[in-house]
């Protein structure tokens, strides 16, 4: 859809920062408060890193797609990769077990994504690929 903004990145760690900047710029144009923009940046970064690392297995020839769709309700960001999606569901990190070395220190990305945005949904649709869909909603308080 042409009212979308689309970004395509090679699967190279570090390039998630480009997606963060692009998404932040769109969110700012929409008028989101800076704290909401920061939330979105972190969620988009984690989604891109997962897409590069787990979805595309760091194969730089595989692209991560970022599709930004604006409407009056808010901003939707889909992050697409060529993989089959996470098998697991989101679970909160157990900091006690992590701090004591009883579970891997990593494994917080999906939790952060879900905690920072208003909606987060993982969709697996091989062979075409998988995506996570993030939404931040316009603040309706003023209505």
């Amino acid at each position, binding site marked *: 859809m042409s009212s979308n903004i689309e970004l395509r990145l090679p699967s190279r760690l570090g390039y998630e920062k480009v997606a963060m900047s692009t998404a932040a710029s769109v969110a700012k144009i929409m008028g989101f408060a800076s704290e909401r923009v920061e939330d979105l940046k972190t969620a988009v970064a984690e989604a891109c890193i997962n897409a590069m690392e787990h979805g595309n297995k760091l194969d730089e020839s595989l692209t991560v797609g970022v599709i930004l769709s604006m409407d009056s309700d808010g901003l939707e960001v889909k992050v697409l990769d060529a993989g089959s999606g996470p098998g697991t569901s989101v679970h909160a*990190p157990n*900091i006690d077990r992590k701090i004591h070395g009883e579970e891997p220190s990593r494994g917080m990305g999906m939790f952060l994504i879900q905690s*920072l945005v208003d909606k987060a949904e993982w969709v697996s649709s091989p062979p075409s690929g998988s995506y996570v869909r993030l939404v931040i909603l316009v603040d309706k308080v003023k209505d």
Partner: protein
Amino acid sequence: MEDTGTRVKLEEVSSSGGQITVMRFTGDITSTSEVAILGTYQGISPDTTKRILLDFSKVEYINSSGIALIIQLMYAAGKNSQAIQTFGLSPHFQKVFTMVGITKYTSLHADEASACAAFGD
């Protein structure tokens, strides 16, 4: 010419309660920061250093792999009976650190003075 790598500067400051070793981070904190963060930590003597202050005031970007490295640092510090205080995180990353629960093991302070004071005498 990429210059977003993590740099860690070690600094000793003295407080009423004794020496504090400050780890001042600059650059991004990501999966590529392992050597910079854990390597630098391993260079600190666990026998003489019991107070470690983490300074994030020059860090703009931290991702979940970077937070995992901070957790590993705290795991090692716990085994070495070292206390850790933290300052300089932006409000956003204070929220993120709180979400993952790190605040159970280190306090996030507004500035260096209050972070140093928190080690006690």
